[in-house]
């Protein structure tokens, strides 16, 4: 699978990541090489094989539905780029 200029721009958009226009072709080349490596998997026979998502095949642990966290809002917001009255500020979304 080889990716071209427009594929890379589409993927970068899906990842919400700006790329320098001048670097898109270099990324297309690198990503195509990586996909070339990955395509070696096609030769593996996996018809009857179960997918593995957890190394120890553990089930997700459940916990009692109780409040365990303290309120750390002020501490967490102290490192935010932009905060007013306890709210995170971003550019206007709704006109």
């Amino acid at each position, binding site marked *: 699978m080889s*990716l071209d200029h427009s594929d*890379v721009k589409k*993927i*970068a*958009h*899906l*990842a*919400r*990541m*700006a*790329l*320098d226009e001048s*670097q898109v072709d270099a*990324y297309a080349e*690198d*990503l195509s*090489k*990586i*996909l*070339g*490596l*990955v*395509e*070696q*998997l*096609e030769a*593996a026979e*996996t018809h009857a*094989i*179960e*997918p*593995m*998502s*957890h*190394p*120890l095949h*553990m089930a*997700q*642990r459940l*916990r009692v539905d109780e409040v365990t966290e303290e309120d*750390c809002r002020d*501490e*967490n917001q*102290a*490192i*935010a*780029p*932009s905060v007013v009255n306890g709210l*995170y500020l*971003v*550019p*206007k*979304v709704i006109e």
Partner: protein
Amino acid sequence: MMHSKSIVELGAGLQTGEFSSVELTRHFLQRIERLDKDLNALISTTPEQALAEAESADQAIKAGQAGPLTGIPIVQKDIFCTRGVKTSCGSKMLDNFISPYDATVVEKLKHAGVVSLGKANMDEFAMGSSNETSFYGPVHNPWDKGRVPGGSSGGSATAVAARLAVAATGTDTGGSIRQPAAFCGITGLKPTYGRISRFGMIAFASSLDQAGPMTRDAADAALMLQAMAGFDPKDSTCANQPVPDYSATLSDPLEGLKIGLPREYFGEGLDPAVAASVEAAIDHYKRLGAEVIDISLPNSGLAVPTYYVVAPAECSSNLSRFDGVRFGYRCQQPKDLEDLYKRSRGEGFGAEVKRRIMIGTYALSAGYYDAYYLKAQKTRHLISDDFKQAFKTVDVIMGPTTPTPAFGLGEKVNDPVTMYLNDIYTIATNLAGLPGVSIPVEPVNGLPVGLQIIGNYFTEAKLLNVAHRFQQETEWHRLTPELESVASD
């Protein structure tokens, strides 16, 4: 020379009052000041905090309340959140991030009384095998400053090898503890997946990431692991398994130990000099009474391609949290919300992180999921089953940690696929979730070489025992790089 001693030796010196933790801490801070300009092993140092911790350690020692790690100076890989201290993960994205909390590993080590000297350099978000993707510049291998220290825990490995700290923490997603340990001539243990809490350890690939100790020798690794391991309710994948006394079994005899040698780990691509060094170490194990058995891990060739679907897929999901809204880097004057996301991420991430996010995004996108991600989860199962089969007949598996010794700075950085193949022997254990340790064997042309020992799930005590017995009879782990033309201390 205090810096040439191990944790075990320094612990004895602290107990008898030969030196204090404050003296020890000052000594290491001075070494960092003097030597790290040329190595770049640390992103930040925290001298005031370190000296305060050393003073409390000295009081604990005087009061007879010291444990084996009390007053021992270490460094933390900059992937672990440290309250009130910059936690960059090697990225511009987190250059301004002062963590509001401690990772569980950090909390546990503080509780054990260690002194933290600072934060170790690393590949950006732990994505790299050479420490060249760090926003803070590459780390230089202390054995040859023109070579890489390995990665992603390259700063941790260099700090321990250059004796800038007695021990360090690392993390290993595809070899990031073992490969730099091999390149720098130290002992690096990646425990079983889930053995150590991932809480507060900045996530790269959550089904593969595991923290571990990087030390001079296996006896020190046992002490570090003892403090780091254990169940943590804050990490939903942390294993609820008892933690054995890792130091108690270090010297157990190895008579009858069955060592499996996978033929796939000794084939094409392996440097013959590295092979000879590893084989000499295995011969030593035979003299210690071990039995060597040829085995096969037939799906080994699938490990690297499987990893480069699973790890990027998980990373693309994990790194979506870096969006310029709540913490970390934000671009200047965003014109709308989408522009804020895109430019904050575009400007905040380096090239390798961008490549992996894009591969993962692509592999998980509509129409490609089955061909890439589902397929890789199945081949992951095949790789894991190979080990399951092997451990029916052997106790441990041995082979080289890396195909070659440390390569030159800049040599592979422009070719991602060549760089990825450097982790060919380490990646499979992460996919299977198994523990592995790298220990120094005979160097090749003055460059360290690592022997990798892989064990079954939760057999860290056995791995450390196997490593320690070798280190009791050999000197390779004591070799130190020559960093100063005139010894000043």
